[in-house]
């Protein structure tokens, strides 16, 4: 009973406490208890997968349990795990197939039958697992064909449950690697489903058809009539399923009819979810297959007016982009736009019709951009219409901003503009600050017609605006401010941390603010600052203040144009419009000096940040001496580094061109410079000839054999973690290797020479033979470099013959990222020589252990090629490196990490004292000891490439209290597991 409770809602913190008890229950004599225990463990797996990873073997045992119930329970677990990672369980396919064969064959005891069907639920589960396993994998699928055929045959249609099995069968057949006979049978089954008078079966039949239709559209043709009937079915669910089916078979010919049907359904339904879903589908279809312009615009109009404000924001954005960018044919474009404008004008003419806000926004943009295409109507008339809308109370302020922007765009084309003046008058006194600002902008633009025309050209919406996202034009200003003693900008998170640490200075004393003079880097890079401001602009706190900038961001297409506005404001010198912060006017002027093109919203963001920053600085630095100011400056830099990386990702995603990317570019170019030098060096080396080369590789081998004798002491490793710069660049070259032109021989030399260096400088594991035969033997060892794990395979030719076209390949594994080092394919391996292959491996997501598989191909003299497979086991520890940080940085990082794990571990007696425990951890896990304070210790390490993890531990008697924190959610659990092993094991 308690097991049942356990599997209900259960806090993850309690799992370690109960886990052993439940594991014991797996051996219980009663099957029901074993079964429940398995399910409880599964529940744990769901809650915290990394805490129960060591019991996977026990699941396997449960799968082979003599009782069917326990086996069935374990299927739940496997279904889940296979869903996550199907490749890891391919080897179990055989046993699943056998189980299913037994079940289908009626080998189970009679009490598992349900309506004379043997264990239907079990069958369903198994079929699903097989479907997952066999996906796109011919070899595993072949194993299944027989049993699937069998179950299709056996399923006599007499009860619901058999239909269920049949349905799963069909599903599986279609998801695995196809086999024509089975497909035929499955198709027949689907036919039975669809034609069945039972409504549930019909529903499933339609569902099955939807799966199948992509592979075999002809099947739909067979059931045409049924589908048509279903369309008019009274049950809305059936109808929707049919539409889903139709959506899949839509093409250019039938689009009109299908969309028509969809719109009909759309008008009837009231559920928000359905509307959102369907509207998305219609829009997608319309974009893909639209037969002509009029139809397209009308469909989109219908979509907008029905979908309204609930639909996904992508739809109007895509639509506008389509309009703006158009197709290849320019006249086509013009027609499309003209039609859109006309249709919107007619729509606006209609009295007393309320359109959703999104629709109005789309309309206003289109009218603003393309009204000039109209012949018969003047811009004034369009403006009048927009004005009418603006005065309408039911229009939201965001939409009003769109409308006003459209009016602004139309103003230069209009000749007389009474309405515009009236509009300006009304909105300059508007209570809405955003509207007031827009109105002011318009007003000033009108005063300077020349500028306005150049700013708002006709039909230029698609031209790329270079938005300087990094705000580099502010660099000068920032530098100036900094030199005047202003504090550098700190990102939001850091500020909070600092506040925290100041408030709780007592609590965090061990990591404390004991300001040492380390980490001083002097001038902060301005790009870092401005990007930081971008980030905090996203954060909720600042976001609230900046309604302006957020608004503008929503209106993507207007962005670039609005960006011009502030420039003009500065020139006319009119400062009435500048928001009521006095400081900002100064900033504006400053900005003006360096301005090229800019985005107003960002200026506002920046200036506000600036102000906030200064306020904060004044509050922060009370009571702190100059020294600490410097210190904080240094730290801000390190933090901003980290954020910069993040923001880079974000920006590349949004596809904006930012000057921020120049930063890493220059970084790389400097390194590649070094590389070229290296190449030059290598070229000179090359001249010395091949003999030399052999010597090099032999030399490295020599070193290897030496290293065999000495055990890798990790202390040494930690001593050489801070490698010399020259070595670093050497590594860079190995990784990036930009010089593809360099001769392969040169590469070999570099390989050999770098190997020389590496083996002397880095720690490496013993040479282990992974596979061999009479001619060659392959052995491998790992080199734990600072920035990556190098796995080196050395292939030695034992025979007296030359080996041709030897090639070593490593199959890609799910958790690893493998980078091939240069020179991996050797044309010839000479007699009794040794060649090495290097791969640098990086871990993509943490896990305890994994295997790297590979094979080597070679060809003997005049014989066929031989292939030899091997595998290398890599554990998490291979990717852990010490992280050298100071205590105060430790404190900072500690606060910034959200994921923590605590655990008490009992130590063996031999190492009950802190120093010895520390030493074991340092040696076995390669952790860096940051500081030891009394009976507490701070350790830090990082998972390559750069996921830090911090460890705080305290000794009470013989109990070690471990406390992990990391930015990665799963890493602490894995590390804890390793620590436990180390501490308890020794």
């Amino acid at each position, binding site marked *: 009973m308690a097991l049942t409770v356990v599997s209900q*809602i259960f806090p993850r913190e309690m799992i370690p406490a109960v886990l052993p008890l439940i594991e014991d229950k797996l051996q219980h004599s009663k099957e029901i208890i074993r079964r429940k225990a398995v399910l409880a463990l599964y*529940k744990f797996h769901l809650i915290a997968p990394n805490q129960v990873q060591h019991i996977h073997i026990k699941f396997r045992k449960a799968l082979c349990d003599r009782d069917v119930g326990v086996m069935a*329970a374990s299927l739940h677990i496997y279904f889940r795990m296979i869903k996550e990672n199907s490749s890891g369980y391919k080897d179990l396919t055989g046993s699943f197939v056998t189980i299913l064969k037994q079940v289908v064959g009626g080998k189970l005891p009679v009490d598992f039958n349900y309506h004379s069907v043997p264990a239907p639920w079990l069958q369903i589960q198994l079929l699903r697992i097989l479907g997952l396993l066999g996906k796109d994998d011919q070899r595993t699928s072949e194993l299944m064909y027989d049993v699937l055929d069998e179950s299709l045959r056996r399923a006599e249609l007499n009860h*619901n449950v058999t239909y269920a099995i049949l349905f*799963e069968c069909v599903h599986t057949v279609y998801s695995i690697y196809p086999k024509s006979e089975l497909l035929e049978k499955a198709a027949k089954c689907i036919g039975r489903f669809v034609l069945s008078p039972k409504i*549930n079966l019909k529903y499933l039949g339609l569902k099955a058809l939807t799966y199948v239709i992509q592979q075999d559209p002809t099947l739909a043709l067979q059931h045409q009539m049924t589908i048509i009937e279903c369309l008019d079915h009274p049950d809305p669910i059936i109808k929707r399923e049919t539409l889903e089916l139709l959506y899949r078979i839509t093409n250019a010919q039938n689009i009109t009819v299908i969309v028509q049907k969809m719109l009909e359904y759309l008008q009837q339904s009231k559920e*928000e979810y359905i509307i959102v879903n369907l509207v998305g589908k219609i829009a997608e279809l319309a974009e893909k297959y639209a037969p002509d312009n009029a139809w397209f615009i009308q469909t989109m109009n219908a979509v907008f007016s029905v979908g309204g404000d609930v639909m996904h924001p992508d739809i109007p954005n895509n639509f506008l982009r389509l309009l703006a960018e158009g197709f290849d044919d320019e006249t086509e474009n013009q027609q499309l736009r003209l039609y859109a404008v006309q249709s919107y004008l007619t729509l606006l003419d209609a009295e007393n019709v309320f359109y959703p806000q999104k629709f109005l926004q789309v309309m206003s943009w289109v009218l603003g951009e393309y009204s000039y295409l109209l012949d018969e109507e003047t811009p004034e008339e369009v403006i009048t219409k927009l004005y009418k809308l603006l005065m309408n109370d039911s229009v939201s302020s965001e939409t009003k901003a769109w409308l006003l922007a459209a009016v602004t765009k139309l103003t230069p084309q209009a000749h007389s503009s009474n309405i515009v003046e009236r509009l300006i008058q009304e909105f300059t006194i508007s209570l809405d600050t955003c509207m007031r600002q827009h109105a002011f902008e318009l007003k000033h633009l009108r005063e300077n017609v020349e500028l306005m025309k150049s700013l708002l050209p006709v039909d230029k919406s698609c031209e790329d605006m270079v938005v300087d996202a990094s705000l580099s034009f502010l660099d000068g200003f920032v530098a100036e401010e900094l030199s005047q003693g202003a504090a550098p900008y700190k990102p939001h998170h850091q500020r909070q941390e600092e506040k925290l640490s100041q408030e709780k200075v007592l609590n965090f004393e061990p990591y404390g603010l004991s300001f040492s003079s380390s980490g001083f880097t002097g001038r902060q890079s301005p790009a870092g600052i401005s990007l930081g401001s971008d980030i905090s602009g996203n954060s909720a706190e600042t976001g609230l203040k900046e309604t302006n900038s957020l608004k503008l961001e929503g209106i993507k297409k207007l962005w670039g144009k609005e960006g011009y506005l502030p420039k003009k404001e500065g020139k006319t010198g009119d400062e009435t419009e500048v928001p009521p912060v006095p400081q900002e006017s100064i900033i504006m002027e400053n900005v003006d000096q360096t301005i090229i093109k800019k985005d107003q919203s960002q200026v506002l963001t920046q200036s506000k940040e600036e102000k906030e920053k200064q306020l904060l600085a004044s509050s922060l630095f009370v009571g702190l001496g100059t020294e600490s100011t410097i210190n904080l400056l240094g730290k801000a830099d390190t933090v901003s580094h980290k954020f910069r990386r993040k923001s880079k990702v974000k920006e590349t995603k949004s596809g904006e061109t930012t000057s921020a990317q120049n930063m890493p570019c220059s970084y790389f170019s400097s390194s590649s410079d070094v590389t070229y030098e290296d190449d030059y060096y290598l070229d000179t080396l090359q001249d010395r000839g091949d003999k030399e080369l052999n010597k090099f590789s032999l030399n490295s081998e020599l070193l290897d054999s030496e290293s065999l004798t000495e055990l890798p002491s990790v202390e040494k490793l930690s001593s050489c973690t801070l490698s010399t710069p020259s070595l670093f660049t050497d590594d860079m070259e190995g990784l990036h290797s930009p010089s593809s032109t360099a001769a392969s021989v040169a590469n070999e030399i570099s390989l050999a020479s770098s190997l020389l260096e590496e083996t002397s400088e880095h720690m490496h594991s013993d040479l282990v033979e992974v596979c061999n035969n009479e001619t060659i033997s392959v052995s491998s060892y790992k080199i734990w470099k600072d920035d990556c794990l190098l796995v080196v395979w050395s292939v030695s030719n034992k025979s007296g013959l030359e080996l041709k076209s030897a090639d070593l390949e490593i199959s890609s594994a799910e958790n690893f990222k493998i980078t091939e080092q240069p020179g991996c394919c050797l044309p010839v391996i000479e007699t009794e020589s040794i060649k090495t292959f290097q791969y640098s491996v990086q871990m993509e997501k943490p896990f305890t252990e994994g295997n790297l598989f590979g094979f080597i191909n070679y060809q003997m003299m005049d014989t066929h090629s031989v292939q030899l497979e091997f595998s290398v086991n890599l554990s998490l520890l291979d990717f852990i490196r010490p992280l050298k940080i100071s205590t105060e940085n430790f404190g900072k990082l500690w606060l910034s990490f959200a994921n923590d794990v605590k655990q008490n571990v009992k130590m063996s007696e031999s190492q009950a004292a802190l120093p010895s425990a520390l030493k074991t951890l340092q040696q076995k896990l390669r952790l860096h000891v940051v500081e030891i304070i009394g009976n507490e210790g701070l350790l830090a390490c990082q998972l390559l490439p750069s996921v830090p993890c911090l460890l705080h531990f305290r000794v009470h008697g013989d109990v070690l209290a471990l406390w992990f924190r990391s930015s990665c959610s799963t890493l602490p659990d894995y590390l804890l597991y390793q620590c436990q092993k180390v501490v308890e094991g020794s």
Partner: protein
Amino acid sequence: MIKAILIFNNHGKPRLSKFYQPYSEDTQQQIIRETFHLVSKRDENVCNFLEGGLLIGGSDNKLIYRHYATLYFVFCVDSSESELGILDLIQVFVETLDKCFENVCELDLIFHVDKVHNILAEMVMGGMVLETNMNEIVTQIDAQNKLEKSEVRMESALGNEGRKHDHELCMMCSFHRLSFSITL
């Protein structure tokens, strides 16, 4: 897995609700209300599956329901469960109830909620189907009932004996506990 099991009558009065994922009281009520709303307006001759609601987090979920006399049995499951399989599971559940209560009706569910929960716990554990064999479930339930009765008897026996037999009581208590750990 099964996300929730709900039973309510034709008027939307919940008779049993079991959630296999943590929800706040309010959301639970909300879910029950919405589910009833969705289910009750459907005709008798439409299919027993409902899809694409937003109710229990995500479009992945399906409602599978059956209507018996005055009661709706609704299972909310995710995509990893087979529709027809669940439909039959409901059938098994109801038949088991019928066996345990001998002609089950709505009143049984009201007055013996604990029993119904016990039966459900034997069938579904933490959202996973545990046992689908009716006889097996009935035996387990019977065993539990027997245990319950013996406990009641023991308690009353203890009450009669009074305080004289303190020592015995201790013994019995420990025995009692033992029997509990056996049923674990």
